[in-house]
């Protein structure tokens, strides 16, 4: 009886955490892999791993960085297993193109394509800061970098995006 209650409590806790952070997990996976289909697979794997490891999460306030770390590792495992090649933006598969296809206005579509084309080293800290709200200190911990390196990458990422958007506007 007590065991069944504990199981139900564990499941409720997991469902609550996933309900809050599922969107963040998916968007992070999508911008890491640059492929919506892969993002769905990565999130599924991440959810399974999170479920098995849930008891290691002692404080639900830390659930977000914990889940993002799991997503990041699962994404790396996915690419390692399949030894996928680097994405060529001029030759996208349907599920890669889907990430760029849902934009209602042209300027935003251009910007999304520019973010898509950023090197992983620049795109990932930008996603963590702007989309997921992490501080530079948290990003540094997540990526295993020094804070100064994160600041440099963020600056360069925005500079590249600004340059691209300015040249689009001038074209």
């Amino acid at each position, binding site marked *: 009886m007590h065991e069944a209650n504990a199981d139900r409590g*564990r499941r409720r806790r*997991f*469902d*609550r955490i*996933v*309900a*809050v952070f*599922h*969107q963040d997990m*998916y*968007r992070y996976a*999508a*911008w890491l892999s640059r492929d*919506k289909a892969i993002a*769905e697979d990565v999130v599924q794997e991440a*959810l*399974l*791993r999170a*479920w*098995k*490891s*849930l*008891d*290691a999460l*002692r*404080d639900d*306030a*830390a*659930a*977000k*960085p914990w889940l993002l770390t799991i997503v990041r590792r699962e994404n790396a495992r996915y690419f390692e297993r399949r030894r996928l090649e680097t994405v060529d933006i001029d030759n996208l598969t349907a599920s890669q193109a889907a*990430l760029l296809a849902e934009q*209602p*206005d042209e*300027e*935003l579509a251009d*910007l*999304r394509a520019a*973010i898509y084309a950023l090197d992983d080293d620049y795109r990932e800290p*930008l*996603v963590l*800061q*702007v*989309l*997921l*709200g*992490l*501080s*530079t*200190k*948290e990003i540094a*911990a997540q990526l295993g970098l020094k804070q100064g390196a994160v*600041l440099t990458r*963020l*600056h360069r990422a*925005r*500079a590249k*995006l*600004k340059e691209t*958007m300015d040249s689009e506007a001038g074209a």
Partner: protein
Amino acid sequence: MNCEEYREAIGADPSFDGGARHVAECAACQAYRSDMLALEQQISRALAIEVPRLVMPELPEVAADNVVTLAAPRRVSKPAWFAMAATVALAAVLGLRMLSSGIEYASLADEVLAHVDHEPYAMRVTDTPVSDQRLARVVASDVARMDHSGGLITYAQTCVINGNDVPHLVLQGEYGPVMILLMPDEMIPEAVPLSDENSQGVILPVGNGSIAIIGGREERLEAIEQSVLDSVTWST
């Protein structure tokens, strides 16, 4: 601080609020800052891709002796209030960007739902309240009076909905953050339910205006609705 240093700091985090003396005297850096703040809003929107409905995988039974043990998670540090640290100038710039974005919504409900994705960084789980000063700045006394009895308010920003400046607040609900939009100029005849793949909520008629309340699909909004209604009074 010189121009190069200032631009590097703004490029790394557009909410950077240092270098006030430099930017006050440098028109080029003022323009650069405005550009970067506008770009930031666009980047945020571009990154907020649609999320498919959650499909939970089949979860295996986990025996106590079969639990994978990971390193102890680090505690979340104080949230990056880079968005909240943005100044009134940011609100003005973002407002102009929204107005000039050319997006037309079929209804107030569509615009309110879309707004959840416009500022995804606002929807964070945190226990750090917004300051009274910040709340007072965003919920101007000539618009409405609001006290803290509605719940833990963790975000406050002036946003544009249907061409009007409205206070955008985030309360912490039982299951996650809940977005509140105080819309004193949006009179509606009856409550409008809101729903999409990831969110649920309602726009409630309140006097000559309305209040939108949106949370995750698991959130129990009835209690929040009541406490918000009890804590807000229109000034007009």
